């Protein structure tokens, strides 16, 4: 698989592209951690899935305003509406973290091959580590997304159906 040509990307931009063979399996959190590691800017936004309803310019403006409002130690999560103020957030909610933040995405549910569960675990990891100190911001237009696996399935797979997490 070849990387796209240079002229397909706008000039003032750096782009890292990693192509993986399917045999390696899906490890979205691990690769998001890796992408965060090689990033050059102070703030990094992790997108576990590209949501068509989230236009890049609008999303960028949301997070860009949040960088001026909040401290660097507070991760900012974009939610669908204002009612969501704590965990669980919307599925595939993008998260903005400082690049040098000591918390990294947990990879322990990557074996389930479910990006939504893996990302929920990552959000949960940040939520626990920051003692609930995630700053939710609501996008103006709600996006529609369906999680591929719900949490009941995960609990059943782990054999801990009665234990809330």
């Amino acid at each position, binding site marked *: *698989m070849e*990387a*796209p040509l*240079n002229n*397909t*990307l*706008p*000039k*003032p*931009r*750096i*782009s*890292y*592209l*990693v*192509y*993986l*063979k*399917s045999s*390696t399996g*899906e*490890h*979205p959190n*691990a*690769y*998001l*951690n*890796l*992408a*965060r*590691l*090689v*990033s*050059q*800017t*102070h*703030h*990094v*936004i*992790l*997108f*576990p*899935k*590209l949501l*068509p309803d989230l*236009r*890049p*310019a609008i999303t*960028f403006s949301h*997070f*860009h305003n949040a*960088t001026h409002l909040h401290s660097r130690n507070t991760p900012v999560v974009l939610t669908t509406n204002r009612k969501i103020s704590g965990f669980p957030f919307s599925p595939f909610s993008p998260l*903005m973290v400082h*690049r040098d933040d000591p918390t990294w995405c947990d*990879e322990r549910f990557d074996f389930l091959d479910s*990006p939504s569960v893996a990302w929920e675990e990552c959000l949960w990891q940040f939520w626990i580590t920051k003692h609930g100190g995630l700053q939710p911001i609501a996008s103006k237009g709600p996006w529609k997304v369906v999680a591929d696996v719900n949490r009941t399935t995960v609990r059943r797979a782990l054999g801990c159906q009665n234990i809330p997490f």
Partner: protein
Amino acid sequence: MVSSGSLDDSPPLTLSALSTSGSFSLSSSGSLQTRLSSFNSEQRLRSLPSVTDDLEKQANPNTDDEVDGDDDNRQIVVENRFWWLVRAFVWFSALFFPISALGDYGFLLRHPSVDPFSGDNEPGLHLVRGIEFQLMGWLGYSPSLWENERLLSKITTLDLQPSRFRYSIFDGFYNSHDLTACVWSNLADSNSSLEWVQEWPGGLGAKRSQLI
């Protein structure tokens, strides 16, 4: 009484004699005393060395002063050669190690793209990496091939072969106040994700794609 009087008179002479001819062994302390007495304070120390010589000859009747001196000289020569070898080795390594390490430091400064994980504001890290490079070279590894994989094995649980993990930097201009987007997407969505990345106004779009 006699010894105490002699020590009060000439302690520095005794010390200097010991330090200049410092290869006398303990067994020949009697001869040392004799020479000291003959050089410096001959008359006052005469009674004491004679007593110690007599005592030593009574304890070891077969020992001879001349044979002892020859053994000492040989020992001195051997020790001198050994210490000169040690000194030469220390000087050589003290010169060679910084030169070789700094050579790699210069290499990393000229080619900063070799190591994508080093920050620009940490010059000390470059030096440490240079030394690591050199050590790996001595161990028989090729740094350019193994360095990335070794660093990656520290930071991620994934088994990333160097051929699998390739980063492509298309342009180097960015503002540190920009926002980086790290995107995970499937190859099925690659066209839409490419469009999405192109629309991203931040300085850097990082895209992960899976080849099916």
